[in-house]
């Protein structure tokens, strides 16, 4: 189990290096005149040259990347080229907001998808058909369309919740709750249908296996078969789909954060990319990859523990 974990950790680190190098190269691929972008249209050529030297843009790309990577290893991600914040500060203030939305959303997605998926698999019939249809519909409607509809109805018409985020450090919990309600609902509706579908298939597959027939023939109750054996067998597939949902949420959140003006990592990523704020973009990339690696690692370990065959695969 330990070598298994170490192997997974090693491939995670490799992923980190490859993606960060790619991202760094891409940021400069267009030959962007970043110094001019920072100083704006009124700046003189002299000012622009000065700024280029200040940021080290006159050095070769690989040298700049190594300098960045060296800093990252020692824990220094540098300072935004467009602002006063250090990259660590910028990420530290926004990541908790995004993670709150994601963690709450994935918990609800898991619970609801599990209930719907298992019920559909066990009961079949009309409930199962309804689920299949809703899975197609829920998957087809983009999260941001749902979000806009939710805002129009619950924020503008009914005025139950704020239209844009009121999240601040000293806001009462109710403000956080109300601000995150619509974004979380939009994400959960989008994620739950396809997850439930996957869980349903996984559970049905287990029921079709020989061991279930054997257990039944031994006179085990349906309840015990489901909770002790079928769910355990179906859990790797369920966990995998949930971890994919979690990672997929990172992408969807970029738009959701914009619609609700949530001060999260998605908004930071968009504004930094548009500006060409390389240190901030790299910081966001780094933390995002770390999150993805951690989630994958946790799911792998969990699967390995649940199903020993995975460990040697």
């Amino acid at each position, binding site marked *: 189990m330990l070598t298994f974990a170490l192997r997974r950790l090693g491939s995670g680190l490799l992923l980190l290096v490859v993606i960060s190098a790619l991202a760094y190269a891409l940021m400069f691929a267009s030959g962007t005149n970043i110094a001019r972008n920072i100083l704006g249209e009124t700046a003189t050529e002299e000012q622009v040259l000065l700024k280029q030297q200040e940021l080290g843009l006159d050095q070769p790309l690989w040298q700049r990347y190594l300098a960045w990577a060296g800093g990252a290893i020692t824990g220094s991600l540098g300072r935004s080229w467009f602002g*006063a914040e250090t990259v660590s*500060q910028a990420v530290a*203030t926004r990541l908790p907001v995004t993670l709150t939305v994601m963690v709450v959303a994935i918990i609800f997605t898991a619970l609801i998808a599990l209930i719907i998926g298992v019920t559909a698999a066990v009961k079949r019939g009309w409930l199962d058909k309804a689920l299949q249809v809703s899975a197609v519909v829920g998957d087809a409607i983009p999260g941001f369309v749902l979000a806009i509809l939710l805002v129009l109805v619950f924020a503008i018409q009914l005025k139950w919740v704020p239209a844009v985020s009121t999240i601040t*450090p*000293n806001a009462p919990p109710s403000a956080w709750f109300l601000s995150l309600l619509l974004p979380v609902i939009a994400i959960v509706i989008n994620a739950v249908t396809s997850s439930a579908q996957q869980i349903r298939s996984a559970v049905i597959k287990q029921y079709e296996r020989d061991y279930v027939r054997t257990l039944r023939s031994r006179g085990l109750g349906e309840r015990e078969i489901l909770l002790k054996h079928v769910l355990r067998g179906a859990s790797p597939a369920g966990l995998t789909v949930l971890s994919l949902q979690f990672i997929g949420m990172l992408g969807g959140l970029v738009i959701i954060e914009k619609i609700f003006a949530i*001060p999260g990592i998605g908004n930071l990523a968009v504004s930094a990319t548009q500006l060409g704020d390389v240190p901030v973009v790299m910081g966001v990339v780094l933390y995002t990859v770390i999150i993805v690696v951690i989630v994958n690692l946790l799911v792998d370990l969990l699967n390995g523990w649940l199903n020993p065959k995975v460990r040697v695969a």
Partner: protein
Amino acid sequence: MKFRTPVTAAAVLTAAGLVLSGCAAGAPEPAASGDASAPTQTLTIGAVADITDWDPAQAHVGHLLQPYQAAYDTLLLREPDGTLAPMLATEWTYDETNTQLTLELRTDVTFSDGEAFDAEAVVANFEHFKAENGRQGAQLASFESATAVDADTVEITLTEPDPAFTYFLSQAAGLMGSPAALDGDAIGAAPVGSGPYVMDTASTVAGSQYVFTAREDYWNPDLQKFAGITFKFLVDNAARANALVSGQINAALIDARSTAQVDGAGLERIAYPTDWVGLLLLDRDGTIVPELADVRVRQAINHALDREALLEALQLGYGTPTAQPFGPESGAFDEELENAYPYDPERARELLAEAGYADGFTMSAPSVSAFEIFFATIGQQLSEVGITLQAEAVPDQDLVSEIASGNHPSAFFFLFQGEAWVAINQIISTDALYNSLDSTTPELQTLIDQVQAAKTDEELEAAAVEVNRYVVEQAWFAPLYRPDQLFYTDATVTVEPQVQQAVPSIYNFAPAQ
């Protein structure tokens, strides 16, 4: 259960912890005060652009000047109509060479950290602004040195006359920070100025909202009309409109396409122009596209554009069609030039034929995704007289450097319409970024020199109008219209427009009576 429990527990704890960490204190209460005259109402403005650095040397203008005005006073105050008025400086006079400027300062002003405002502080600010090479560093391009003559007199020496210098003292270059804070890093995160409001750092969230409360004993209570101002950063137009309609903010700028939603909610609108939209016909010497060297070709382009129709299609009619690049309050404006090139495709074809290009020609311009609709409509009109406008896709953030690169014969853009001297140095002089192929003629240079050498406002304006007439006659540009800034306020707030500024200054807001 080795794994499942800790993971679930960790997830729940993380979520709970994150929620709890956000609720150390209650919501900010409006400042209670025993003084009956003290304002009690607060103002929340939806801002389009984020403040990433509060150091006055990194200050920006346009959308970003407002929040700096909350924290910092400027040396001069720019009235809504554009005239300059005393603020931290009570008097300002040039010597006869227009290169020596003397400022008389107020003596009753302190910074929020307790430091006194005096001549040394002004000198420190100028030197800091110059050294930091910030986003408006060009405002001090003509600045050579500043000397404190005595505690309340500063003498500024310029390398050459700069008719816009005093205007800049009401903008980024005029924002005065506490000299004790200028050299540190902390001022970038939280401003230290002498302004009417101080930042409430506990309620402020970088990238989201900036909360200010009124400063006690501020030297000019007339400028301090609210108990506090919050700037809520809402980059998305729909989010801004939603926040306005649902009452989360009191005021915001809204795109023309959202006016229907916002108008229905009973909000007040002010509309005023700050930009012009159109084509810069950069290749006046024909280096890249030889056809453009002929003035008749450039005039043909101007005649081929149906400005009224474009304004209606692209801006829902909110704006004014125009054929001149200078704005009504610039000092260079000439009413007669507004319709210098009436829509006349027949005349355009004639001019092209006279120039020997009856078969038309092709010119390109850098384009970003947001410009597609503009290129489609303008290109359609030009194609009717035989001119092909080719869009060359460039990344969004590179647009300005692409236009400036000198590789494009023309460009489409939204450009700020500033004071005459500012505009000349933006689009016409050989130093101008948007004169990327450095076109000029001896006649034009003479006219520009006259603007720079002007001793009085009247002289300056007379010379600037001549520059305007010259570039319109020579068809250096193909302006389309001046789009209106559509700024909305709710029933609790009134606001006055500010000329040549994307959003009104904070001094222009007042509680509704």
